[in-house]
C-alpha cells in the first residue's frame, strides 16, 4: 500500500512560484503595463472634462475598455506553454512532474485564476491613481469584474485541461462551461444600457460572492477530473463517434478533393485550413452565445454595436493570426515545413494576404448573417418594431461615422479592413519579436505623445505640431511604400503586373478621394498655409499604405525565411 505523505507547504509555494516565473512573468507584467497605459489614456479621453463626447459614447467606450482589458488579461494567461508546438495537444511533460494531481491542476488553474483577479485590481488601482477623477464616478470596474475575470479564467482553463474528443464535443462542452457564469454575470452587470454601471461593478454581496466561489470550486473539480484522465492518457467523450463523423466527412469531401489546380490554390487551402477559418468560426460561435445570453430588450442594440466592432477589430485579430507562423513567441520564425516548400517568397506572402482577406470577408458575412437572422426572426415572431429599431441603430452608427451611408463608404470600409489586416500580417510575417513589439508600442507612443503634447503646449504650437505631423506621416507613408516597391523590385520579388496594379489602385483611390472631397481640398488650398496644405498629403499617404503590403509582405517573408 502506498504511503501517503502530506505535501509540505513549501512545495506548493515552489510550484506556484515556478508557474509564475516560467509562464507569466513577462506576459503578465507586459499586460499590466499595457492595460494600465491603455486605460489611463482612454479614461482621460472619455471623462466629461475632456470636453467632447456625449454620455452614450462615453458609456460605449467604457465597455470597450472593459472588453479590451479582459482580452489582454486572458491573452496574458493563455497556457501556451502547456500545449505542444502546434497548440493542438497537451504537452504531457507536465504530467511527468512528481506532483499530486490536485496540485498540478491547482498550479494550472488556480494560479492563473488568482492572477487574473489580482491583475484586474492592480490595473484598476493604477488607473485610479493616474486619473484622480475616475474615483468619483460609478463606472469604473473594480471588485465585481475582478472576481468575474477570475471565474471566467478558471472555467476557461478547466475546459482546456479536459481531454475531450471529438472536437465538436469539445466546442459544446466549452460553450456549456462558460455559459453558466456568463448567464449569471450578465444578469448582474447588465443595466438599462450597456456600460451603465450596476451595483455589482463596485460591490459584491455575500450571496454573489458565494456563487462565484461555487463556480470556481466546480471549475477546479472539473480540472482535477480532466487532469486525472489526461495523466492516464484516456480521453473523455465519444472517440468512435468522432471517427465515424470524420469518416463521413471524408467521404463527402472526396467528391471535391481532386488535385489542386495550382500551387497557389494549394497554398491558399493550406493557409485557410490552418488559420483562416478560426476567426470566422469563433465569430459565429461568439454571436450564437451572445444571442442566447443577452437580455431580450438589449439584444438589438448590443448586437448592432457588436457587429460594428467585428468589422473593425476583427481585421486586426486576423492580421495577428495569419502573419504568425509559429505558436511559440520565443521562436516566431517561419516553420520548417512552409519554408522548405518550393513556393516563392512573394507567392507565399501574397497567398497569406489572400487567406487573411478571405477570413475578413467570411467574418463579416458571419456577423452580418447573424444580425440578419436575428432581425428576420424578430420579424417572424411579430416583433417587427424591434427589427426596425435594430436596422435604425446600425444605420445610425454608420451615419455617425459619416461614410457608411454611401457606396463609397462601403468601399472605404473594405479599404480600412484590408489595410489594417495586411499591415499587421506583414509585421508578423517578419518573424521578429522586435517588430511585433514595435507594432504594439508605436500606437501607444503616438497616442501618449499626442496626449501630452496637447496638454503641455499652447494651442498654436499644438496646431503647428499636428500639421507638421500630418506632413510627416503622409510623406513617410508614401516614401515607405515607394522604397518597399523599389527594394522588392531590386530583389526580383515582384512581377511587372504587381507594380501596374499597385500604382493603378493607388492613383484610382486618390482620384476618387479627390473627386469626393473636392470641396474640402479647395478650402484647405484656399487657406494658403503650407502646413494646412500638408494635410493633403495625409490622404494619399494613407492610401499608399493599402498597397504597400504587396511589396512589404514578400520582403518580410524573405527576411524571415532566409535568415
Amino acid at each position, binding site marked *: 500500500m502506498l504511503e501517503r505523505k502530506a505535501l509540505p507547504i513549501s512545495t506548493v509555494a515552489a510550484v506556484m512560484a515556478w508557474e509564475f516565473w516560467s509562464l507569466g512573468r513577462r506576459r503578465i507584467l507586459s499586460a499590466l503595463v499595457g492595460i494600465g497605459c491603455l486605460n489611463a489614456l482612454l479614461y482621460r479621453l472619455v471623462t466629461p472634462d475632456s470636453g467632447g463626447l456625449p454620455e452614450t459614447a462615453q458609456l460605449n467606450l467604457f465597455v470597450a475598455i472593459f472588453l479590451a482589458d479582459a482580452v489582454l488579461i486572458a491573452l496574458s494567461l493563455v497556457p501556451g506553454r502547456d500545449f505542444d*508546438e502546434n497548440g493542438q495537444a497537451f504537452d504531457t511533460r507536465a504530467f511527468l512532474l512528481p506532483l499530486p494531481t490536485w496540485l498540478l491542476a491547482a498550479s494550472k488553474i488556480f494560479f492563473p485564476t488568482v492572477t487574473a483577479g489580482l491583475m484586474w485590481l492592480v490595473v484598476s488601482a493604477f488607473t485610479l491613481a493616474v486619473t484622480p477623477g475616475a474615483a468619483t464616478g460609478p463606472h469604473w470596474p473594480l471588485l465585481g469584474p475582478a472576481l468575474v475575470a477570475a471565474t471566467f479564467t478558471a472555467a476557461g482553463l478547466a475546459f482546456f485541461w479536459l481531454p475531450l474528443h471529438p472536437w465538436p464535443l469539445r466546442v459544446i462542452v466549452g460553450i456549456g462551461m462558460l455559459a453558466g457564469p456568463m448567464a449569471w454575470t450578465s444578469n448582474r452587470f447588465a443595466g438599462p444600457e450597456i456600460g451603465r454601471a450596476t451595483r455589482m461593478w463596485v460591490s459584491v454581496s455575500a450571496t454573489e460572492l458565494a456563487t462565484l466561489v461555487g463556480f470556481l470550486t466546480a471549475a477546479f473539480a472539473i480540472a482535477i477530473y480532466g487532469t486525472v484522465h489526461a495523466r492516464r492518457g484516456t480521453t473523455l467523450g465519444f472517440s468512435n463517434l468522432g471517427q465515424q463523423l470524420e469518416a463521413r466527412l471524408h467521404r463527402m469531401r472526396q467528391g471535391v478533393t481532386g488535385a489542386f489546380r495550382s500551387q497557389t490554390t494549394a497554398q491558399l487551402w493550406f493557409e485557410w485550413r490552418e488559420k483562416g477559418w478560426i476567426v470566422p468560426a469563433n465569430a459565429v460561435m461568439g454571436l450564437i452565445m451572445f444571442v442566447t445570453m443577452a437580455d431580450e430588450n438589449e439584444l438589438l442594440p448590443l448586437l448592432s454595436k457588436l457587429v460594428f466592432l467585428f468589422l473593425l477589430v476583427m481585421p486586426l485579430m486576423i492580421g495577428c493570426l495569419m502573419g504568425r507562423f509559429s505558436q511559440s513567441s520565443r521562436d516566431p520564425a517561419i516553420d520548417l515545413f512552409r519554408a522548405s516548400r518550393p513556393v516563392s517568397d512573394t507567392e507565399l506572402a501574397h497567398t497569406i494576404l489572400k487567406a487573411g482577406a478571405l477570413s475578413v470577408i467570411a467574418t463579416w458575412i458571419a456577423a452580418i448573417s447573424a444580425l440578419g437572422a436575428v432581425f428576420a426572426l424578430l420579424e417572424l415572431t411579430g416583433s417587427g418594431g424591434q427589427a426596425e429599431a435594430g436596422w435604425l441603430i446600425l444605420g445610425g452608427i454608420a451615419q455617425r461615422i459619416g461614410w457608411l451611408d454611401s457606396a463609397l463608404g462601403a468601399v472605404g470600409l473594405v479599404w480600412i479592413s484590408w489595410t489594417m489586416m495586411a499591415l499587421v500580417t506583414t509585421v508578423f510575417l517578419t518573424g521578429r519579436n522586435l517588430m511585433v513589439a514595435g507594432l504594439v508600442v508605436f500606437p501607444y507612443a503616438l497616442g501618449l505623445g499626442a496626449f501630452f503634447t496637447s496638454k503641455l503646449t499652447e494651442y498654436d504650437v499644438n496646431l503647428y505640431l499636428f500639421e507638421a505631423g500630418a506632413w510627416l506621416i503622409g510623406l513617410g507613408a508614401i516614401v515607405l511604400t515607394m522604397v518597399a516597391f523599389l527594394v522588392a523590385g531590386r530583389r526580383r520579388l515582384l512581377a511587372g503586373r504587381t507594380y501596374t496594379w499597385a500604382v493603378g489602385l493607388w492613383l484610382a483611390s486618390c482620384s476618387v478621394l479627390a473627386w469626393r472631397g473636392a470641396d474640402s481640398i479647395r478650402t484647405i488650398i484656399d487657406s494658403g498655409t503650407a502646413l494646412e496644405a500638408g494635410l493633403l498629403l495625409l490622404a494619399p499617404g494613407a492610401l499608399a499604405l493599402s498597397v504597400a503590403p504587396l511589396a512589404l509582405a514578400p520582403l518580410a517573408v524573405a527576411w524571415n525565411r532566409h*535568415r
Partner: protein
Amino acid sequence: MSDHIIEIDQLSRRFGSKTALDDATIRVPRGLVFGLVGENGAGKTTMIKHILGLLKAEHGAVRVFGRDPVAEPVAVLARLGYLSEDRCLPQWMRVDELMRYTKAFYPGWDDDFATQLCETFELDPRQKIRSLSRGQHVRTGLLIALAHRPELLVLDEPSSGLDPVVRRDILEAIIRTVADEGRTILFSSHLLDEVERVSDRVAMLHQGRVVLEDDLEEIKNDHRRLTLRFQESPATPPDLPGQLRREGGGLEWTFLCTGIDGTQERAANEMGARFVAEQVPTLDEIFLAWRDA
C-alpha cells in the same frame, strides 16, 4: 553542367557567440550517397539549412544545382526532397491531405509510387499526422520527400525515431534504390555504422569545421590501426608519422594513423619496435580519432 550537385565554399555561420560553421567547404558529386557525419551540434543541420536556402551564407557561397538557393528558392526546392529531423509536418492534416497538398508543388509527383510507398511504410492515408508515432511521422516525411522522384534527396538525421528493423530494411533500401537510379542523396547522421553501410562519400564535421571529406573507400584505405611492440618500454610516449590517436603503455602501443605509406614502418624500426597488428579501423574510430586530433 557541373559534376557537383552541391558546392559549398568556405561557408561560415555564427549564431551569437557560437560558431556553427567555420570555413566549411564540401562538394557533393552527382549520383552518389553522401554522408554528413558529426556529433550533435557539429553543424550538420546548419549546413543543410544553407543548402535549402533557409539560412543565408554570412561568409562563403552555397550553390545547389548551380544556383543560389536563397536567391532562387523555387528553382532549388522544386528539384529536391527534404526530410527534416524535427517533426515539422502540419499536425492538423491527414496523410492523404498532405499528399494532395504536396503534389500541387511537384509536376513530377508519381501517384502510383506514392501509393506504393504508403503501403510499404504501412501508413493509413486517413490518419491525422497529429496521431502518428515518431516512426510513422518520419515515414510520412520520407513519403512526401520521395514521391516526386527528386534529383537530390536531403535527409537530416532520418534514422532518429526509426526502429532498427525499419532503419535497415526500409531506409537503407530506399537510399540504395534512389542512388541506383542515378539520383543524389545527402544525408546527415550521427550513427556512423549506418553511414558506413550506405555512403559512397563522407564528410566529417566537428565544431563547424570539415575535418575530413573523401570517398569512403579512400578513407578506409588511408587509415590503419597499427599495434607496435617494443623490446623495452619507451621513456616517453612514442609518435608515428600521421598518427591521429595513440593508446597503450609499456611494451605495446596502438596507433590510428592516416597517410599510410612506408614511413610508419620505418619509424617503428628506428624506435626498435615492430608491427604486431595492422587493421582497418571502423568509420566510428576514424571519426573519433579525427575529432580528438
